[in-house]
């Protein structure tokens, strides 16, 4: 019997016993699903911080325009929008008015909007001129040495992190300008999740 004939006869055997074959395969599937469900580890109460969806955000301390220190750890528990930008970046400049609008509109819902200037690759003069076009509650922070940008693995600007009230990153948007509708959808989800 040559290879083609052997293959054909095996296929015929399979088709003849298709129902049995299917039931065995599906039963094996059920066993596999149940077994893998039993293997899921218990929720880790202290996950390591990573700039990735589902993980706690890396902590940082940065200064505002007025020199005040902002510690991310103090803000966790509130819905947070964390945006990385530079004054030479056109999409960053284009979306900043939207971030300002959103920060004002959702201020009463405790939304915190942090706009981190990647000063290590920008100029303080250029960044300051741009910042002065906007007003609180939008909060600008200086990342002078780039440590925070490095911790958040910023590879493109702008990059926006959405952090829920449970202290986990819910989504990351790389690039921009970010659509206002997308911002609203994410923020509404953050605020809804933070409601009692």
């Amino acid at each position, binding site marked *: 019997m040559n290879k083609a004939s052997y293959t054909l006869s095996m296929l015929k055997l399979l088709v003849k016993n298709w129902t049995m074959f299917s039931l065995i395969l599906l039963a094996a599937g059920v066993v596999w*699903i149940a077994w893998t469900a039993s293997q899921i580890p218990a929720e880790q109460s202290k996950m390591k911080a990573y700039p990735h969806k589902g993980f706690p955000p890396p902590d940082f301390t940065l200064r505002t325009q007025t020199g005040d220190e902002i510690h991310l750890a103090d803000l966790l528990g509130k819905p947070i929008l964390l945006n990385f930008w530079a004054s030479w970046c056109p999409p960053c400049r284009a979306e900043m008015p939207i971030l300002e609008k959103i920060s004002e509109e959702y201020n009463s819902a405790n939304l915190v909007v942090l706009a981190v200037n990647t000063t290590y690759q920008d100029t303080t003069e250029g960044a300051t001129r741009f910042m002065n076009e906007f007003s609180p509650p939008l909060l600008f922070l200086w990342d002078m040495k780039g440590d925070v940008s490095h911790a958040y693995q910023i590879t493109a600007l702008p990059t926006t992190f959405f952090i829920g009230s449970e202290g986990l990153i819910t989504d990351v948007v790389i690039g921009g300008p970010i659509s206002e*509708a997308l911002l609203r959808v994410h923020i509404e989800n953050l605020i809804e999740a933070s409601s009692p």
Partner: protein
Amino acid sequence: MLPTLQAGPLAISTPGIVLLFGLYFGLLLSERRAPSRGLSPNRVYQISAIILASGLVGARLSYILLNWPAFRADLVSIFSLNYKLLDPWGGFMAGLVILLGYSRKTGLPLGKIFDTFTPTLSALTVAAHLAHFASGSGFGIPANVPWAIEFLGAKRHPFQIYEAVTGLLILILVFRLDTQQQAKTPEGTLFLTFVTLSAASQLFWEAFRADSPIGYGGLRLTQITAWIILSLSLWLLGKRLKLIYKNQP
């Protein structure tokens, strides 16, 4: 992982590039096999343009309907190029409905259309897994194997690579089956073979994924969905295979 590729001042989305390449390669394969089904390459591109356009419009409309308050405040966002403003299920249903309408209008059997585009779907599936690898989504559970990848503070199963390699094997098998058996199989057989193998693959490999959506009792929702799809495809495929071998000695 490699979410972006730097090209001077430009940051290019790596997952996007990978998906585009997968689509291009898949369409090339489908175009190559189309004449054996009595379809011209132009017809393949016409149908694919219809599916893509209807899928994108459907995905956007569905997302808008689901999140209307956000769009009401900024109507310009309706036309935003941001791919995150798309609902995949809405796109899938829209594409399917349009395809059904196209099939009825042109008289082209749905099974023949599905079979024609099976290589495209298969190539896109491989590309999707590689795109996940590039973006870092769908990462694996911690592992202690020599090929584990360091990611997010742990050595992990390269879950996306497992799926991509299996997807590639499925693509090769599907293409070989098509070239060897196409004349003898009822329409829809190739597509159902692809769906069966892909569902089985998903059901198995999902166990190695760390961020799999979990339901009641720790059950992985993607595995349950894959099992349901596997059940349906096995049933439908069995009916077709029995037709092939019914009259054989």
